[in-house]
């Protein structure tokens, strides 16, 4: 019974050759291990150890000086009771939603248009990508002056066209502050567009030619050929979006400092505030652990969604 599972060649191979191959397998394994060692060392040094420190610190109370005091899971209880943290968590999820449901579809739309190579497509591709090479800090400052209550371009434009009733302190009105801090990120679609364009360029031309012969419209081609074939790139874009949303810091920090009254607070900003202003390192690390858990859950959700579409 057992012999039936063994490949015939292995059964007939001379014993000496089998031993030699076994020795080579061991050598190969060692070689693979050695090649992996530098990367593994870096991962341990810069990821595994810091993560262990973050988890460890999240169970302590520490002001940055002296010996940390172990407080078990008190920091997580404090987070759950802190309205600012709850706002930060909800706002971060809104960032993820805006990135997934507004930013990514915009990237897909523009990529589909640019992929058709209309007149001036190179110019527009460059213009759309340009904000990605400018520092987010500079862009946040620029948008601060777009939304500023008295110096802002937006309010000036609204006044100029007779819409004075729409003029408001966009950054410091709790109902608009979060959207205002998200706006620049949502509209800068350059990175996602390039990612998707790269994937679109790998689709064989023959598919479109065949579709055209069958009388498929441009929209039908996009819906039935392009989008299904770039879904992996779209999933990758969503992963980037989730990652950025969880790290969202520059825009709310520069434009609103998380205000007014914490209405534009994000998890990254909360972590920064607890560490830099409140000197509550343990609480800050606990918020970091929650961010990590949220990120892991969202990443797994993206992979699960991708698997489902591929079935």
């Amino acid at each position, binding site marked *: 019974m057992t012999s039936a599972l063994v490949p015939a060649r292995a059964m007939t191979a001379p014993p000496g050759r089998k031993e030699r191959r076994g020795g080579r397998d061991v050598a190969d394994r060692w070689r693979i291990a050695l*090649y992996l060692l530098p990367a593994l060392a870096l991962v341990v040094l810069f990821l595994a150890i810091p993560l262990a420190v973050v988890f460890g610190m999240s169970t302590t109370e520490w002001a940055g000086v002296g010996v940390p005091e172990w407080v078990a899971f008190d920091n997580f209880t404090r987070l759950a009771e802190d309205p*600012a943290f709850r706002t930060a968590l909800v706002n971060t999820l809104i960032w993820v939603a805006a990135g997934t449901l507004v930013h990514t579809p915009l990237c897909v739309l523009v990529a589909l248009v640019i992929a058709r190579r209309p007149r001036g497509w190179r110019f527009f591709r460059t213009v759309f990508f340009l904000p990605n090479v400018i520092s987010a800090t500079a862009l946040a400052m620029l948008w601060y002056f777009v939304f500023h209550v008295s110096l802002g371009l937006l309010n000036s434009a609204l006044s100029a066209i007779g819409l004075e009733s729409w003029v408001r302190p966009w950054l410091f009105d709790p109902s608009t502050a979060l959207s205002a801090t998200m706006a620049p990120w949502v509209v800068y679609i350059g990175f996602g567009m390039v990612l998707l364009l790269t994937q679109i360029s790998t689709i064989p031309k023959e598919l479109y030619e065949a579709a055209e012969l069958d009388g498929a419209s441009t929209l039908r081609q996009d819906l039935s050929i392009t989008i299904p074939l770039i879904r992996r790139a779209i999933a990758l874009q969503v992963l980037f979006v989730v990652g950025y949303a969880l790290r969202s810091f520059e825009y709310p920090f520069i434009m609103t400092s998380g205000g007014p009254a914490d209405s534009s607070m994000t998890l990254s900003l909360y972590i920064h505030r607890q560490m830099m202003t409140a000197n509550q390192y343990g609480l800050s690390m606990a918020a970091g652990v929650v961010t990590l858990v949220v990120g892991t859950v969202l990443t797994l959700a993206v992979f699960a969604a991708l698997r489902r579409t591929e079935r």
Partner: protein
Amino acid sequence: MRRRTLIPLCLVPAASLGLVACGSAVPEGQEGDSGDGGEVTVTVMSNFTSDVARGQVLDELIAKFNEDHEGEYQVESAAEPDWPTLQQKIRSMISAGDPPDVFLYNYNPNDRSREESGALMDWSRYLDEDPEWKARFSPANLDAIALDGAIPGIPGDQAPALVYYHSDLLEQAGHDSFPATWDDFFTVAETLKSEGVAGLAMMTADDAWHTMNAFSYLATAAGGRDAYAPGESLDSDAIRRAAEDTRRLLELSTPDAVGGNYAVSSRNFLAKQALAVIDGPWLISSIQSDVEDPCTVQVAPAPTAGDGAVEPGYTVTDSLNVWGAAEQADEEKTEAVVAWMKYFTSNDSAVRMAVDGEYPLAVQTELGPEDAERASCQMRQVLEIANAAPASVVQMGREITSGAQAQLPSLLESLALGQRGPDEFAAGLQQANQE
């Protein structure tokens, strides 16, 4: 094949060595600080960057000190412009057991972790050995810093937060001098508001410095000097009244006061968008450079309630900033640090800092007639008011716990937006201060 396997083997130690080399905390050229008969190097870490007046004066003082002690001591400035970053850096260095040689930090009676770390030099011996030097510091400041009989720092500065106002705008509102009571000030602010000028430049972001200066004056005007003294409950009538008045002030301020930061608020004042601002003397260099006729900006003590709860002319001050130093194993280096601090806190240096650096130190500072002539119009008034002040109180934002400090912007903004009333504000502040 063997060569291929050797490459990653070599890369690991090479990368490790690279990391070790990058991680060295001692800048090149500073090895062997002392004990080898060479110059002793002392690094001074502060926020006195060369692009601000006090940083330029510090650089000049260091150059003079190094010249006077050539071949013996060498002082170097390591300036970090951002105050919170500087404070975190110092904390990290103390925590790592390698504090900077000399560093400027903010004293907080609610957080003595740095003094308690055991990593700071005790100055009591050197102060006791030189009574003349010790007499240059206020005994109250030395007592505040003292911990278990040791003095872990030297008083650095404690800037008074005073009212800077545009006298021409005030005249426009029909007043010759700055209002002496808060009620009068509100009347002036309402008059100016109708003309499109804010009463007070304010801000709620970061440490809400300008707003908390006003809040502290309002709280002490209502509840006396101990209105928010350590140990006092912040859920009190004085704090509630101050919260109500602060809400009114924010209403009468510029439209970007809620959410604005120090730069926004200062700019509003300098651009005459606001009649006044309550700030420290570091504002003077901006007044001198940015206001068309700088001497139209006058300085005044803040108003009181006019009911005698506090003496008119009292001042609210910034927290006491303290010069700490690393506990040194090397006696030669300790001598260098002491020599530098004595030089830096001498009357000559203090005068230079006050007159040219627009930054009065927390030491006795006697201006000669020439110095007084050279001082800016605002600095002369600042020194006069500070010297004549019957009492001083540290600003409230500097006296509460760091956890409460972190929640101040949110509390002030919710007060301004009407999400919290004065009662909820006071209760929220008290709760944050106890966490």
